[in-house]
């Protein structure tokens, strides 16, 4: 996994609640291989008309926001389907952090496994950020995972919480499977206790 570095970048305001993973990447792209550039499918039906033309009112199509590497959105971002493709679409586009008052649980979990940081800030703070980002297109935010804070050009600093294990994995770029396999003796010991359902005998 890519290491999460200090992020100082333009932020895209997505000023709506409940942005579900169907909005982030429509289901018809789930059959595409991971080798595809999923950035092309990001917010596909919000960004492009059926004929492929850009929808100018969608902010990602405006020059000041095109280079965004941070998304700021209202509550429950990434709700819905478990598709990891939603994270791939954001990541491939270049997004490395999403700031919102709350996230879909599975989306947040998927994000952490792919070098994308979900940052939870209080609703009024997020509302304030959204307002600033609309008023000043291209405004940079700093997301500092080490210090666990978001810094705004006006001097405001917003602390955020992050799961210590997830932080460790993100900062070091650690692959979870490799880490878990180092705990194989604990897994084998659990299996040997025979409490697993159904028992090995029943499985045969």
């Amino acid at each position, binding site marked *: 996994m890519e290491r999460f570095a200090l992020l100082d970048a333009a932020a895209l305001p997505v*000023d*709506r*609640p*409940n942005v*579900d993973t*169907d*909005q982030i990447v*429509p*289901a*018809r792209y*789930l*059959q*595409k*291989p*991971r080798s595809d550039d999923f950035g092309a499918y990001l917010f596909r*039906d919000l960004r492009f008309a*059926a004929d492929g033309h850009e929808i100018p009112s969608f902010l990602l199509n405006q020059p000041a926001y095109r280079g965004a590497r941070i998304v700021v959105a*209202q*509550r*429950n971002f990434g*709700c*819905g*389907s*478990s*598709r*990891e493709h939603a*994270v791939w679409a954001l990541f491939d586009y270049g997004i490395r952090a999403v700031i919102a008052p*709350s*996230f*879909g*649980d*599975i989306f947040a*979990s*998927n994000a952490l*496994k*792919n070098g994308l940081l979900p940052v939870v800030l209080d609703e009024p703070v997020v*509302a304030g950020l959204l307002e600033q980002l609309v008023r000043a297109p291209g405004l940079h935010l700093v997301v500092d995972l080490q210090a666990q804070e978001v810094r705004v050009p006006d001097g405001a600093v917003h602390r955020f919480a992050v*799961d*210590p*294990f997830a932080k460790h994995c993100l900062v070091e770029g650690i692959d*979870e*499977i*490799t880490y*878990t*396999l180092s*705990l*194989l003796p*604990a*897994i084998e010991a*659990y*299996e040997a206790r025979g*409490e*697993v*359902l*159904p028992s090995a005998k*029943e*499985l*045969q």
Partner: protein
Amino acid sequence: MPPTTLFEKIWRRHVVHERDDGRTLLYVDRHLVQDGSAPAFAMLRQRDLVPRMPERAFATPDHYVPTNSRSLADVRDPEAARMAQALRDDATGAGIRFFGIDDPRQGIIHLIGPEQGLSQPGMLIVCGDSHTSTHGALGALAFGIGASEVAHVLATQTIWQQRPRTLRVTVEGTLGSGVTAKDVILAIIAKIGAAGAAGHAIEYAGPTVRALSMEGRFTLCNMSIEAGARAGMVAPDDTAFAYLSGRPFAPAGEAWQCAVRDWRTLRSDDDATFDREVTLDVSHLAPMVTWGNSPEDALPITGRVPDPRDVDDAERREAMQRALTYMGLTPGMPLAEVTVDRVFIGSCTNSRIEDLRLAAAVVAGRRVAKGVEAWVVPGSGLVKAQAEAEGLDRVFADAGFQWRFAGCSMCLATNGERVAPGERCASTSNRNFVGRQGPGSRTHLMSPAMAAAAAVTGRLADVRPLLTSAPAVSAST
């Protein structure tokens, strides 16, 4: 021992390793795999790993199979058909038990797990699909995971979790005729919101839940994710044991007796405390329909399309306005005047035999309204066979419905079975998101009985009068 919740009891049984920071490695008893899993198997191959416990996994294709036939050639997009083919190759190559498209037991994975007795009380069950919460109805801890986690479970038979908080939703009151588990869960989501249970595992309790059949409980737990919950569960009881008894992969003989003795301990202690409690009285609940693009946008069918001008919160007002524009609805219009183009009875939420019986009871002796295309997609091959043995297929076909094969179909349209842009669909599925059933599709969520009522009237309609009045065969077709 201090009093504990059902959730805590199951969680504790599965702890393999706990880090000081609270991150916990849990053992996975059952891993259900569907045909969206090609990326996860690719991740394993990249690492040169093979599934650690293939006998704990089970696979069946559902997202990418056609429902007009049993030939993958009928999936028009070859790339989509390859997803179902990839599952066959990946599962059989790894020694994972697999029901293919030509197997009479194939179907939507969240039907097959319980139907085959693969899902059992006390188990920790995962699947790379958010509606895995369905299996919690049997008293299991079951939740959806992403592709990286699917690869992790295949490689290690474990999963890392941060312990969620607990929420008990107590449902009281007797459901009226024509009011079902679907209406209850839509009412719960409308009450607590689409993120209302975020970070929580829900336990559904109370006399109404106890009185629900297993099938109703599956519907209830299925849509826990639409309230934002990690998982939804119901304590296993005689209803659950009667459902499981004799199923192919359920314990038998002495092992069954032993299992039931253990399963009876899987309940929240009387004085156990939950992080949150919500209570809902459903005595006067009317059948529910959604009007917007979030499952929380649900109202009784007797209501009207809401007016954004009545809402103080600016953010909420804008979201409503956007939804009404997308859905093509006018504020103040009675919901029962909204006409539909399509009806979809199916999905992991509502495609079980009781769902089809209830819909058929409404449809019997009536005709699908002129201009409406109505489908029934049974959730599994065995549900389809059971329905045919009961003559339900004839009831639907005589009324003008299409009677199809099992799969996810038009719930999310990955197999190409789509609602056309601008078309309005009365659907028994679980998500009314923008474009969910195809680009530009307009979805109204409801119960199978209500979808049947929509089919025969051509609009969103209160099913209750149809259940009491004799069918009048219309000449409209």
